[in-house]
Structure formats: structure tokens, C-alpha cells
């Protein structure tokens, strides 16, 4: 199937700590895209890369397609980073995405 597993399901950090979010998928993927969602809010695209490492600000996305895994690293977490982080994958030849259930991140002072 198209199962996408994210871990951990939830994470609590103190402000300034780093976070490492994992995404594993059961079949081949063309690309992983990471989204951020506030409670009751829409999805905001963070990073998207087919393989390798990509940076933007305090975020680093690493995708290892052959090993069917990806990760999102958040450095120096801030209270405003709190929310849900969703991983989605697309398949070779298709333009649909399959989503994980997300990691809920809470950053406390």
C-alpha cells in the first residue's frame, strides 16, 4: 500500500532545543514534501525534495529514497514552531500525494 508512517506521534521540547521528525514509507517515492499545520489551520508547505538534503532557515529536510525514509530537522526550536508537521510522498509517474498522520510538536518556554 501507500502507507506513510511518521514518528514520533508527539514531541515536547524546550525552546532552543532541536527536533528530528521521521517519515518512513512502504513503497517507492518520487518526492517527499513536508507541511506545517496549526490547530484549525491549513497546510503550509515547508520543504519538498526528491532526494538528498534541502535547507530553508532553521529547517533541513533529508530524503533517502532508496531506504524509503525522510526526516525534518528543526534547529533552535521556538514557541511559534508548535503545531503539527505532516509528511507526504508522491510516487513515480503519479502526481498524487499520500500523507502521514503527522507529528504534533509543542515547544515550551
Amino acid at each position: 500500500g501507500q502507507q506513510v508512517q511518521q514518528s514520533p506521534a508527539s514531541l515536547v521540547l524546550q525552546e532552543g532545543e532541536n527536533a528530528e521528525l521521521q517519515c518512513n514509507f512502504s513503497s517507492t517515492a518520487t518526492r517527499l514534501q513536508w507541511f506545517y499545520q496549526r490547530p484549525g489551520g491549513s497546510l503550509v508547505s515547508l520543504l519538498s525534495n526528491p532526494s538528498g538534503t534541502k535547507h530553508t532557515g532553521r529547517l533541513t529536510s533529508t530524503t533517502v529514497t532508496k531506504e524509503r525514509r525522510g526526516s525534518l530537522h528543526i534547529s533552535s526550536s521556538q514557541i511559534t514552531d508548535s503545531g503539527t508537521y505532516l509528511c507526504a510522498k508522491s510516487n513515480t509517474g503519479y502526481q498524487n500525494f499520500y500523507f502521514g498522520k503527522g507529528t504534533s510538536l509543542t515547544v515550551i518556554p
Partner: protein
Amino acid sequence: EAAVTQSPRNKVAVTGGKVTLSCNQTNNHNNMYWYRQDTGHGLRLIHYSYGAGSTEKGDIPDGYKASRPSQENFSLILELATPSQTSVYFCASGGDWGGYEQYFGPGTRLTVL
């Protein structure tokens, strides 16, 4: 600025009634998608479209229809709404072949009583 908008943002419907959710995008993307998001299930694909005039079934199409009359507009239609269709619905548009990035609308909260 490229954007995906949805209307209405909130809707209360009665069981058996017809509901139409609308989506408009100014990204000039060929691909558009309808998802629903429920606690415990995450985001699930209902219908999608590769361009004007096309609609395709996603993973959970039962009870839903879709319409893509133009590049910009994509509607989701519930002909006979049921309480199990109470959810938050998101529309998204996606880049063409090789792009594979999706951009989401703000969501519609639908309650079926």
C-alpha cells in the same frame, strides 16, 4: 500571488441535503485535489483532476462527486449528505509533471446534522 481559496469556510447541512464545496486557484496549475481531514485518519484523497473537464477518483470517493469546469475551479459535491461526511475539507493545487508540490486552501469545516 498564487493562491488557493475555498468557499464556504464553514457549512452546516442537514442529512440528505446537497452540499457543494468550491475551490479556486490562481496558480495556473493543471492538477487539483480534494481531501478530507479527520482525527485519527489524517488527510485522505477524495477526488482529483488533471485539468479542465477531467475528474478522477481518489482513495475515498464514495458519496462524493467532483466537477472541474475550468482550469481555476474545482468543486466537490455531496448529493446526499450524511453525518459521516462531517469533516474538514481541503482543496489543493499541484504543479505539473516533475513539480509534484501541492499548495493548499484554507479548508472548509462541514457539519452534517
